[in-house]
């Protein structure tokens, strides 16, 4: 069924952006958009008794990048263990592709599996500018989902030079040029200055006022410069911040100082779970989720995604190369490190979160505490930092942990309690997310935080991305197998089976800037880059940039 009109009949609709919380109504679609009504005789989908939500929006994933591909190449054993035959599509469309899964599935399989969970929009959260072309090529092979990415600027040599010189305007213009030249959607900061420190032999920057080498550049200065740049450019999504000192005991200090330094500004903090650890008397890890979430609850300009850890296999994959260095040293697993010229780094270590491991259990608990102590689901949204905290395929199990206290407490009894003493979760948290709140943290919230006005809701004019679930007392099963998924008006999942796999759209921006900056950038390229300035921008992209403002 690929008619340009469709009526989804009689479902119980959860559309929090439009104030619809479980009302029974029809959802009408025409030419890929939600419309108020469609003529009599339009094809229908019977959704009576079912749950209707906007398509899922993943604000922070790693799915289409040069770094992901290094991870795929590292893990043939995972791919051999999870073969994915081509799904059988309707006979009127081009046949689907086969692939492999694991924590870093092949591109086609990634698209099919996201859509199979009812997700229709996904962002890759970390792309080095010089590899942007690679990301666009991979997205071209990732069907169904609309995709975009955040471009890594927090350790960029040219940008750091502007920070050193205190030239905020030039930094902003450079950032704007970078977004347009790479086809990105937002600015990403990973471990501000810390990767540059790692590449220079300084190991890391773990405090926000720690200077980079003998310069005046500090994480604070980088964070302020880029946060203001994103806001002055009126980017739909503010700067996307992965704080310094990831994974370390006591890193809550760095996280709180970062939040205080940027207080009052629009900022998004990502995979916050990895940044909320206290330190006990023995130097060991404790949960400090309550302190951080208090701050988030009170500062309404802040949004976060959680970066929940789920038990099972994961692949840690990050521009935060110094953090990956520490992880490979402690885990002894195979390790990829790649220094990316003038821009950033890349580290990859396969990992497994185990119920029996005290550290894994603590990380699991910290994430849940952030969710359960959050007072505003619109600003505390769902992610596992796929595949770092676990695969996106574990989202249904995560939703179950949020909605079903029984399932959560049963799991809590199984995990290693050694580091959980005195934690809020261990003391008992009774909160259960409602379906409306789930619709917020998986759709409406991320779309709003991303500034995607056509996503995450079912109001007239929105993109016709709709997911229909069959009610089930087993929440994980309900969210793992949607009955119908509509993407851009095309019915892609029908009766729980993938039937169509249209190409997704690219979500990118091309902000305006003062072109005077380019003369200086060209000098920088001519002196230090190995790619010609003229060859750097990605050209001939398929979809036009989105409007800003």
């Amino acid at each position, binding site marked *: 069924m690929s008619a340009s009109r469709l009526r989804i009949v009689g479902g119980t609709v959860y559309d929090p952006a439009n104030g619809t919380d479980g009302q029974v109504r029809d959802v009408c679609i025409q030419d890929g958009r939600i419309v108020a009504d469609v003529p009599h005789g339009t094809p229908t989908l019977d959704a009576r008794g079912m749950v209707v939500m906007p398509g899922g929006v993943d604000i922070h994933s790693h799915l289409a990048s040069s770094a992901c591909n290094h991870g795929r190449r*590292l*893990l*043939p*054993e*995972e791919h*051999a263990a999870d073969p994915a035959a081509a799904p059988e599509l309707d006979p009127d469309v081009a046949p689907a592709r086969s692939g492999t899964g694991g924590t870093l599935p092949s591109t086609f399989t990634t698209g099919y599996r996201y859509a199979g969970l009812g997700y229709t929009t996904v962002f890759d959260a970390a792309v080095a500018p010089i590899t942007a072309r690679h990301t666009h090529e991979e997205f071209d092979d990732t069907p169904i989902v609309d995709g975009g990415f955040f471009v890594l600027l927090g350790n960029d040599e040219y940008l750091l030079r502007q920070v050193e010189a205190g030239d905020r305007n030039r930094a902003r213009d450079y950032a704007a040029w970078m977004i347009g030249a790479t086809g990105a959607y937002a600015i990403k900061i990973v471990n501000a200055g810390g990767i540059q420190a790692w590449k220079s032999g300084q190991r890391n920057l773990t405090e926000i006022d720690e200077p980079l080498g003998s310069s005046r550049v500090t994480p604070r200065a980088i964070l302020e410069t880029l946060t203001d740049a994103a806001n002055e450019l009126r980017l739909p999504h503010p700067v996307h911040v992965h704080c310094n000192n990831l994974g370390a005991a006591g890193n809550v200090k760095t996280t709180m100082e970062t939040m205080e330094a940027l207080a009052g500004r629009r900022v998004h903090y990502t995979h916050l779970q990895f940044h909320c650890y206290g330190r006990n008397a023995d130097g060991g890890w404790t949960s400090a989720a309550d302190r951080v979430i208090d701050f988030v609850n009170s500062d309404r300009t802040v949004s976060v995604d959680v970066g929940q850890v789920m038990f099972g296999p994961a692949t840690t994959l990050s521009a935060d190369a110094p953090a990956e260095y520490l992880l490979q040293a402690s885990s002894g697993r*195979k390790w990829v490190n790649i220094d990316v010229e003038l821009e950033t780094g890349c580290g990859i270590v396969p990992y497994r979160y185990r119920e029996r491991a005290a550290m894994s259990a603590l990380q699991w608990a910290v994430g849940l505490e952030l969710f359960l102590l959050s007072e505003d689901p619109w600003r505390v949204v769902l992610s596992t930092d796929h595949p770092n905290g676990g695969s996106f395929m574990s989202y249904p199990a995560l939703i179950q942990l949020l909605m079903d206290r029984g399932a959560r407490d049963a799991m809590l009894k199984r995990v290693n309690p050694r580091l959980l003493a005195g934690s809020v979760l261990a003391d008992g948290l009774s909160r259960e997310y409602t379906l409306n709140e789930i619709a917020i943290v998986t759709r409406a919230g991320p779309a709003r935080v991303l500034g995607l006005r056509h996503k995450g809701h079912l109001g007239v004019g929105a993109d016709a991305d709709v997911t229909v679930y069959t009610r089930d007392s087993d929440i994980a099963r309900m969210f793992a197998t949607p009955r119908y998924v509509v993407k851009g008006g095309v019915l892609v999942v029908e009766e729980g089976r993938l039937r169509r796999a249209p190409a997704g759209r690219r979500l990118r921006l091309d902000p305006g800037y003062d072109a005077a900056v380019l003369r200086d950038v060209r000098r920088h390229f001519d002196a230090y880059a190995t790619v010609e300035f003229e060859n750097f921008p990605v050209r001939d992209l398929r979809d036009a940039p989105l409007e800003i403002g």
Partner: protein
Amino acid sequence: MTLDLTLHTAPSVPLEAEVITPTRLAGLSPADAARLTVVHGNQSAELGEFFRVESTAGGDLHLSGDLARIKMVGAGMTEGRIVVHGAAGMHLGVGMSGGEILVEGDAADWVGAEMTGGRIVIRGNAGHMVGAPYRGSRVGMRGGEILIFGNAGSEVGSGMRRGLIAVAGDSGDFTGVNMLAGTIAVLGRLGWRPGAGMRRGTIVSMHPAELLPTFSFACTFRPVILRLYLPYLRGLGLPITEAQVQGSYQRWCGDAIELNRGEILLLDPGESSATA
């Protein structure tokens, strides 16, 4: 009652026949067994297109003909016994957890890769990667026994974590590379660089060997463990001499760039010449 499979048509390209396990064939009539699916090139085929299937008395599954192009026989098997009257193709008994496979001829590469239990006996020679991990994975054989009466190729016991591999002839280069634990006994000569990257485990040889500089000599002694293992292997038909059982062995520790808790035991030359 069980089945005899005789190859009547040699496949033009290797046939993947992991259906040939005692469990899959148990209780099937010859006609039903002949309809089982095998993969030939990019096509599915039926077992009967290549094998004549007959039922016989006795508990073993017998395979006859030149099976060098039949891959994955006994893959994942859990119980029972397969006798191959001839050569066996690649990936014999990979991932098996129980039962026994006897090959009267030679076997190709990847015998018993990632097996966890059971026993594989090769009367002839075996190829490379005996008991190895699949590509990218760290851990090879996790249990069971592989006995090779002829020679074995390179990387015997790569990444091995538990179990026993015995080679009556020579072994190729990198025997026991990246071994995590377990025992490899080679009655002939070890190829180049045995034990490279090993963390724990034991490699035994009855001949002198050139070792990596990251192995250091510890002592010469009479290992108790060999007085248990070697008679056991002799009981299984390997040509172990009494001098080898009672002999002194040089103990080398390594690999120093890894955990350094592995050992290579080399029969002391004085002892070996005395028995020659």
